[in-house]
């Protein structure tokens, strides 16, 4: 169930599942602030806390997608503000190539998102959440599971 509705969405009951990796010092605190401010946003994301966006291993993103996530959100501090000085720059560099590589593997760009959200930007967090859920709802499920294959009915031709 979503807290916002965009007009013109396909109403087929699909609710995106989003895994979010938030850095402890900025984005996680922004989410806390959104809570203490009683802001409301779509409940589709599940937050996994890391100390820095630089900890986010591309393998985490891929494992999340492989396990059925429809989107992955990475939240870190603004450039220049990283609590550990430069971890977010490494996250940024990885994100650029990872996103391109994932599009080559059929994962739409909009499913992987990196956002700089400082501890004071609870409203940005709310907006990003709502926006991302709406966008992925429009894209539909990621459908990255590898279909089982069997050849029960042999294809045949008779002359």
């Amino acid at each position: 169930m979503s807290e916002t509705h965009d007009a013109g969405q396909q109403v087929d009951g699909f609710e995106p599942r989003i895994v979010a990796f938030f850095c402890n010092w900025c984005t996680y605190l922004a989410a806390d602030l959104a809570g203490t401010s009683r802001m409301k946003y779509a409940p589709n994301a599940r937050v996994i806390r890391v100390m820095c966006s630089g900890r986010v291993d591309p393998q985490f993103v891929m494992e999340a997608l492989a396990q059925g996530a429809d989107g992955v959100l990475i939240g870190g501090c603004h450039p220049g503000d990283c609590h550990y000085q430069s971890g977010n720059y490494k996250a940024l560099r990885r994100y650029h190539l990872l996103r391109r590589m994932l599009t080559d593997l059929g994962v739409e760009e909009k499913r992987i998102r990196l956002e700089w959200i400082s501890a004071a930007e609870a409203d940005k967090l709310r907006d990003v959440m709502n926006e991302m859920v709406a966008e992925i709802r429009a894209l539909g499920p990621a459908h990255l599971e590898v279909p089982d294959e069997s050849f029960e009915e042999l294809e045949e031709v008779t002359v």
Partner: protein
Amino acid sequence: MSDKPKVAFYWCASCGGCEEAVVDLAEKILDVAAAVEIVFWPVAMDFKRADVEAMEDGEIFAAFINGAVRTTEQEEMVRLLRAKSQAVVAFGSCAHLGGIPGLANLWDRETIFRTVYEDSPTTDNPDRIHPLQRYRDNGHEVELPGFFDTVRSLDQVVEVDYVIPGCAPMPDVISNAVATLLSGDLPPAGTVLTPDVALCEGCPRIDSKPEHLTISEFKRPHEVLVDEEVCLLAQGLLCLGPATRGGCGAVCIEGNMPCTGCFGPTSHVRDQGGKYLAAITSLVDADDPETIERILASIPDPVGTFYRYGLPGSLLHRKRMPVDA
């Protein structure tokens, strides 16, 4: 009937290079032949499938299977060999990770058949005939194996006991692995039979690699006059050494070419391509999106480069199958 351990060799979707590698053991092959009894080896010996079917379960000591699983026949054969063998050894990158045939996972059967049988420039097939599995004509019946959409590594079809990695594995890697298996002192199931450390440890050029390497442009091997003494990554080439298990003697580096990752990742990594991506992007010398994009644009094909051998074995296994509208 000898009491030498029985071994089988089989090839799935492969190039034949792994079979050559066994032959490349040269004199050592005589030691192998002396130590074991080969009961099945389609490329070199005349045993039939029926011979294997007639065996008891577990009668074969070890089945060395190379190639990825791409057709129904291959799946049947590996399942058969699994049932008849005590140990199944994935031999070579294709069996280990999917190998180069695994890059076909960027497409599906429809697309591949259309390209091969219709669209390729030298094909003359006006009736758009694709291979099918059964063909009957005049009372005669011909069957072809089914062609899967998705290439799989061996362990995605049957349980694999050991892995001999490489494309193709080197002679000493093979003979060491075979010696280990015959010694009776078996490592834990699932072990890859080479050291569990990345290639850089054994690389002759490691001392020339700077401690604080940063990269502002990636190069392809034909774009640079490659210095024979200096670390290849330091020269901007996409050497997968840091993300690839060693034990190969760094032969490609000795040949002045970057490692392409054929031994697969260490056991502490779930996705070789993802880890390599993490490592080299961390070294990119830029902090703003525009410069980062510009530098990364000099990597023309991330999937083909980082998953040359390992796409089926990666976390996502393949490009997303076309989604029906």
